[in-house]
């Protein structure tokens, strides 16, 4: 077996040391750190992108929360305003109603007053006419005209 030929050992071992030294100190040392730096830079970039994405997401979440809060307050405000408007309208309607009622009431009262006055007047006229007629009747029957005050009292008593 050539592998166990003692003469083959030294040259191969020496050349392996030479080859490995070239590999480690020249080839690997000039290329591998560049690759390592690139990989590190990539990792850093990915991490940075991730954190910035996280930050953007947090910001977006914050904005959404703000937006939702804004919508909620706007809704509350609108609701309050609607309730206020409704109350105001109700108050106005009530006031209107009261005003109208009062007007109608006063009209009714005036009408009633006028009616009472007319009635009193009519009754007074009827009284006069009745007293007159009673005086005429008594004059025709007795020939003598009674005292107008008397006939008037009698008419009032009959009408009442």
């Amino acid at each position, binding site marked *: 077996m050539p592998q166990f030929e003692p003469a083959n050992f030294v040259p*191969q071992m020496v050349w392996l040391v030479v080859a490995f030294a070239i590999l480690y100190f020249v080839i690997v040392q000039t290329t591998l750190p560049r*690759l390592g730096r690139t990989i590190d830079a990539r990792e850093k970039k990915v991490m940075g992108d991730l954190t910035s994405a996280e930050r953007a997401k947090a910001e977006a979440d914050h904005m959404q929360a703000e937006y939702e809060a804004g919508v909620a307050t706007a809704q509350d405000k609108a609701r309050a305003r609607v309730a206020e408007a409704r109350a105001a309208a109700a108050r106005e309607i009530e006031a209107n109603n009261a005003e109208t009622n009062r007007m109608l009431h006063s009209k009714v009262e005036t009408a009633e007053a006028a009616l009472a006055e007319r009635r009193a007047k009519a009754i007074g006229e009827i009284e006069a006419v009745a007293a007159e007629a009673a005086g005429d009747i008594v004059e025709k029957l007795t020939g003598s005209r009674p005292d107008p005050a008397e006939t008037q009292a009698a008419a009032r008593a009959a009408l009442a």
Partner: protein
Amino acid sequence: MSANNPMEQFAIRTLHPLSVSGYDVSFTNSALWMLVALVVIAAFMVIGTMKPTLVPGRWQAALEYVYDFVVGVVDENVGSKGKAYVPLIFSVFVFVLVCNLLGLVPWVGSFTPTSHIAVTLALALIVFLIVVIVGLVNHGLHFFTFFWPKGMHPALALFIMPIEVVSFLVRPFTLAIRLFANMTAGHVLLKVFGTFVVALGSFGALPYVFGIVPLAVNVALSALELLIALIQAYVFALLASIYLNDAINLH
């Protein structure tokens, strides 16, 4: 007959004789294929990191996939303190992986450096030495408490300690032999079935017919060897990081 010898593929051929202060350090086909592996790795890594972009291209994504894999192995076995050793484990992993894979290229000139115990042992010794140095630098002489089993009766611990020492010292050898044996066995198997293809395929009465069976076996074996090439590179890197963990975190 020598062409049919399944060991012939592991033969070391000197391409350029070289000698430094009396030691033979000839440039061999083994060294050549280690350099080929370096060229392949360098091409892969230089193209992959030529224009690094946050959204990776195909080459960069492929390289990042391998890198992430190694980072995962180190992270899982060593933890946060292991970050500094990722380039080391990465180098070990890609070197073993590319050497294993290049040996599977179905070409008569291809050679697998990791099928030689000298290569795997040298690599394992590098890892072992680094582990010892890291342990001594991080913990000083306290590192040797690693061999003292904690919470055990002293008499029993005294008995266990030599076993711990031996199991620690034997690590580079098991690491080396595991890889070398897997690679060698796989290539021998492929070669043996390859010779069967020729031997049975040239059977006079029915040419080619009987060669199909070993050929089919070789196809399946190639897939298996591809898997083993990957797994052995992974195991080597995994054990290296487990040993590093011992040195960094002690118990």
